[in-house]
């Protein structure tokens, strides 16, 4: 089975459409959405509606910190742009959208795989997996052999062998990575809707469970249109600019 992994869509319709199309061409037959469906982008309701359709067909969907902020109130640590985007988003969601978000879990466990938005260590604290130290903490919080998360907006892969040492690797788009049986893997999937590694192309990944191979992809999409919609919608202008620069 090929599982498509989509994280941090952030209400970016153009990016999500491009990734879903790419995944379909890739014969992906299972979808997991790793949280932060909304926040920052101009199409929150469309994105939730679309993800709801996939959910109805069996896709897994995880709650992200921006989704949680829409439901209650933004975290104190949230930056000003993000807070403004949450306040802008809330009135634009339907009752069905809100109901759907409120039913999302913090993590999903399937056999030896764990899906979570941020670190598996206290998921509700929304801490980043951004270095070997935080990755070790994340590994230590679960027995799952494969952990998939988002939140960082940049693709990374960690592995931990028998000695317990954690090693970080920056994946290369389109290159199949065999996930060896003798170690544990923690895949930080880059962002669909707001990449921050200086590459504006949308990011998602595919895990082929038959061959046990993980592949990260970068998908070009109409960034200009997405950025223009952000600027024209009354959201902070910077949120449009950063899409074009991938920061």
């Amino acid at each position: 089975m090929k599982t498509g992994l989509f994280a941090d869509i952030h209400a970016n319709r153009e990016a999500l459409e491009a990734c879903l199309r790419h995944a379909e061409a890739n014969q992906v037959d299972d979808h997991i959405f790793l949280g932060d469906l909304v926040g920052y982008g101009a199409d929150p309701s469309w994105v939730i509606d679309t993800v709801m359709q996939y959910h109805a067909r069996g896709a897994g969907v995880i709650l992200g910190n921006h989704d949680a902020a829409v439901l209650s109130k933004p975290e104190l640590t949230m930056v000003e742009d993000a807070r403004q985007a949450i306040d802008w988003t809330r009135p634009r969601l339907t009752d069905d959208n809100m109901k759907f978000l409120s039913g999302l879990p913090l993590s999903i466990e399937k056999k030896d795989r764990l899906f979570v938005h941020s670190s598996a260590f206290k998921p509700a604290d929304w801490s980043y997996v951004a270095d070997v130290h935080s990755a070790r903490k994340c590994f230590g919080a679960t027995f799952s052999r494969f952990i998939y998360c988002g939140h960082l907006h940049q693709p990374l892969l960690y592995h931990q062998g028998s000695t317990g040492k954690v090693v970080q690797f920056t994946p290369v788009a389109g290159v199949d990575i065999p996930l060896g049986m003798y170690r544990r893997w923690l895949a930080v999937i880059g962002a669909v809707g707001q990449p921050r590694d200086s590459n504006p192309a949308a990011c998602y990944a595919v895990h082929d469970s038959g061959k046990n191979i993980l592949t990260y992809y970068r998908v070009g999409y109409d960034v200009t249109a997405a950025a223009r919609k952000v600027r024209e919608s009354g959201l902070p202008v910077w949120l449009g600019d950063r899409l074009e620069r991938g920061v």
Partner: protein
Amino acid sequence: MTESELGKGSLLGGFKLEERIHAGGMATIWRVVRQWDTMPMAMKIPRLKDGDDSSFIVCFEVEQMIMPRLSGRHVPKFIASGDFSMQPFLVMEHLPGKSLDVLMREAPLSPQEIAVIGAKVARALHDIHRQHVIHLDLTPDNILFRKSGEAVLIDFGLSRHEQLPDLMAEEFSLPMGTAPYISPEQVLGIRSDFRSDIFSLGVILYRLTTGEFPFDDPKSMAGLKRRLYLAPVPPRVLNKKCPNWLQEIILKCLEVDSDKRYDSGAQLALALENPCQVILTSRSELDKSDSLWTEFKRWIRYSRSGPSQLRSVARHLDTAPIIMAAVDISPGAEALSDAIRHVVKRIYHGERNARITCVTVRKTRLVGIDLGLDEAGKNLYVQYLTALKQWAQPMELPADRVSFHVLESPDAAMALINYAKSNHAEHIVIGARGSSMLRRFLGSVSSHVVAEAPCSVTVVRLHDTGDSGVTSDGYSGHG
């Protein structure tokens, strides 16, 4: 079935074990056969026992990960691999020849023999580097030769694929490699510099030349680190017959700072194959070991700085291409050869680490005897070489960035194509003369080169109006 239960006639993964050809500490190797398959095959089976060092397993995993991604004449062909959930194994093409280690016992060899062997290994390295793989354990044991002569690299258990996670990095804190051959940066735990392999080849060349190791065979970390600040005894001190060009090449490979080594295996091979064009520096003159004072200064420098920053293999090779300028130096072609020079110069200025090989073809007779002399009895080869150097002179290229080659063949296009293939040229610049009925009928040299070249080709044409303006139509194609 465990490894110890396997024996002659056992079946594993559809392969029948025929003969055990090697029994090492880490793995056994069997000659195997498969129905309907005539290729000679070897199966590597790791020895996995409880309490074993996990490095055994990781080495095998690394090799299983990397081998299927390598192709070409310089590696054994990958055939199949078996999962760790059952009995793990790896099946590859079996190369029956002897390793370079056997030849090593006859060291010192002649400079000519060393250059031929070194160039073969350098080309093999270039080939795996282009495929994003750094060997990191290049030793004479791990180099075999095909009957056709090409070097084949084996044992990728310590290797690094720069587009895949480095499984080795999670297991060990000590440097990994074979002590006499390991590069200074590997001693420091850096496993991402492809020029580590150039260093190891330097050690092999040193040993072939002198019969000795340049940095001994240390057994301790302190001993390994000595190569970071101690220069080896110059090869000419140990073998008076070592020519200065060979000493220059060897010591350049053994530079502590990898930036000072050859930029690619292909550039090293080119140097070994063209000794008279090796630029001699003070390295070639060294005739005694460093004084204690020099050693001390180097030690201070090493303890303050450490090795230079590293670059990605493929990205680096992209910036250190071999650009081949194919020039017709016969009378009447001056305007076109001027135009080619113009384009080559432009390319060179955009590629700081490029190396320009200027090539011309002296067409020899297909039938009859070709004496290689003109009517006055002068050597034609030398005349062509001189003319080629004159052609390149206005570009004012640094001497260590340019080389000159006169090919002698009845078929100019095939000679150029073969040269580009065997020298890993990244880009050919060639001129095309105006069209004529005869050329359309016979096909031109440039169109033949474009059709069959192993790399990108830029075809340079003169404008129809006859002025000297250049149309570089960037005719790029991968054949």
